[in-house]
């Protein structure tokens, strides 16, 4: 392998590492929220818990399913199957959209039960509100890149195939490893938040 390729490979490894660090700092944001949650709950005073398992179970299932479609997209992309990769990426994007929709309906259901975030002497719904919204913002930013990757993959399929070739594998592809890491992290993060809220709310 010539020197420039080695350098590029290291550079791509560095990008992956950046994603790991971004995940770590993202964890710290939610560590901030959940620790504030525990401190507030431990301080005593009004605190009404409620069961969220039925409210957010559909969205939890969807985001776990979307991890599977992401995996399929990543493998298809690695094999150079651009069409299928593009489709699976789009499917993952659609799952993200559905996830956000069911988070929203879950939230509407809770407010109908009287769990308002604002002007409520019970602070538990407002913590739930912030956690759900900030997680959804993370998911939405991931969806933006899913859409870009999907469109790019589709355009690559239609374009002159000599344009972009990964020099390491000689397979025509877009880069999905970082996206895949981020998306699985979104699923794991929600699973953690769901478990946390289920046990501590």
């Amino acid at each position, binding site marked *: 392998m010539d020197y420039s390729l080695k350098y590029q490979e290291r550079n791509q490894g560095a990008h992956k590492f*950046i994603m790991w660090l*971004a995940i*770590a700092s*993202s964890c*710290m944001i939610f*560590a901030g929220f959940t620790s504030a949650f525990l401190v507030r709950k431990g301080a005593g005073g009004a605190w009404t818990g409620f069961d969220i398992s039925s409210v957010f179970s559909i969205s939890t299932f969807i985001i776990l399913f979307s991890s599977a479609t992401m995996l399929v997209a990543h493998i298809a992309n690695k094999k150079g199957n651009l069409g299928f990769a593009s489709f699976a990426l789009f499917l993952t994007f659609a799952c993200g959209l559905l996830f956000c929709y069911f988070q929203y309906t879950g939230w509407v259901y809770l407010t109908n039960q009287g769990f308002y975030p604002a002007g409520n002497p019970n602070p538990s719904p407002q913590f739930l509100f*912030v956690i759900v919204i900030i997680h959804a913002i993370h998911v939405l930013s991931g969806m933006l890149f899913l859409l870009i990757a999907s469109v790019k993959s589709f355009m690559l399929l239609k374009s002159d195939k000599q344009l972009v070739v990964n*020099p390491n594998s000689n397979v025509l592809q877009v*880069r999905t490893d970082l*996206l895949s890491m981020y998306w699985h992290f979104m699923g794991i993060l929600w699973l953690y938040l769901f478990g946390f809220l289920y046990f501590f709310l």
Partner: protein
Amino acid sequence: MVTSAIENNIDGQAHHHTETFISKYIFSLDHKIISRQFLFAGMAWAVLGGLLSVLFRTQLAWPNETFPVLETLFSTWYTDGILKPEAYNAMITMHGTIMIFFVLTASLTGTFANLLVPFQIGARDMASPLLNALSFWIFILASVFMLASLFAPDGAPSAGWTVYPPLSALPQTSPGSGLGMTLWLIAIALFIISTLMGGLNYISTILNMRTKGMTMYRMPLSVWALFFTAIVGLLAFPVLLSAAVLLIFDRGLGTSFFLSNIVVGGSPLPYSGGSPILFQHLFWFLGHPEVYIIILPAMGIVSEVLAIHSRKPVFGYKAMIFSLLGITIMSFLVWAHHMFVSGMNPFLGGVFTVFTLLIAIPSSIKVFNWLTTLWRGNFHINPASIFAVGFVSLFISGGLTGIWLGSSTVDIRLHDTYFVIAHFHLVMGVAAFFGMFAGVYHWFPRMFGRMMNNTMGYIHFGITFVGAYLIFWPMHFMGLSGVPRRYYHFNEFDAFSQYANMNVIITVVTIIVFITQFIFIFNFFHSMYFGKKAPQNPWNATTLEWTSPVEGIHGNWEGDLPVVHRWPYDYSKPGADEDFIAQTTPLKEGEIESH
């Protein structure tokens, strides 16, 4: 970010392509240019931050005088020639915010991490140049919001740089808690995103992009310090982001995370169940590591500059690294020493006292090693080296009072007095500026290919150094007498009338020191264009940045990257022909590598 990396073929060879002014100097992806951009932005912010301190110091020195000139210049902040009380609060808030976040965090790290990390580890650029550029431009966006908050129509933010609720959470509490505070919070959220983007990149670049032979123990201390700075930032800033988000929700959506049982103007507000102490915990979980985010890069720069200009290896290289590591870990265990008076359990106060005092150990190791690096060195006097020595002096003077304040029993007495102001300005305010000045004077030839003027540098150093002590030394005594910080004037307090003249002296010196900084700015821009042309390696330093062409080429080195054979502190090595051996020089037969 995700899909474009393969197309962005950052190859191993330097390649030239036509660039316009905009692509080269404005939306550049080159670490050298981004470093300059951070420096220029930081200088602009520092002038504004300094100007605000001159304004509020003028009020403290002459509380009954009128200044029609200042009213003409800053009409929104003055009535009848006198600074308005709410504007005074805004000035101190914005001075702290600007200096801490925009100058000493963003610009200090942004300038030197961008300049030194790729250069000193032998990389063509950052791991992700795009993320690097984005980091700068999001910083500029944050700057726009912060600047806008200063000129908010109902008043600039005035809740102090710590923005404690309920003052910061309720718009009706003060004029500055309205739109100004909202803009402040947006600016800080953007600022955190920018800092995180930078930090991710620095860590990944240091761990993944080192050139052949550049083992971790062959990295200069400047890179080590920037590495630990980025780690602290990466773990601490997200928590402040959480706090800012919760505060934004409290302000905008009526939640009660930090608010409870509040009565304004006789009418109770609907908030209940929140805790303002919770905000203090979240804030100081960042706030204390933040002071290390500021001081660690300065420490790294000073270690490097002192060794080079003493023509000696840095004393205790590994001890320096492990004390940096010690400070990094311990910086997360001391935050509540800012909250000793918030009704904390005395036992918990004791625990935080012990941790706080323990952090003095790695700090003292560093001071000891700087002094022993200087000891019997062949010290070359120039602005860079004396600013580095000035840093050590200020760090010792300010650090010693940290031991007082770290003890909860003493702190309860001195909390929120001028003693605290004196302590932190010396140890992490002025000291960090001295580290930054040392870095600018030292690496100016590397950044612009020209030398700065030494005479102007000496004048700059002399007045700033003496001025710093004249300003902050008396404040210790004021604080010990109980003079509280953040007060608009002390006319009503007979007990403090003895300090009226002292306030005048401090203010006069502040104005002189502020004006002196323009000598530096003139020197900087004049030397950029008319300074003496710099030779390839003006300080006879060993590190890799001085092997890259002076004119600064894309990719840093023509052809292959340099290969490293030794540690970065081979100065005055016995048996060597010169008093320095570059890191790229192979070991002679039988030569043992120093560590």
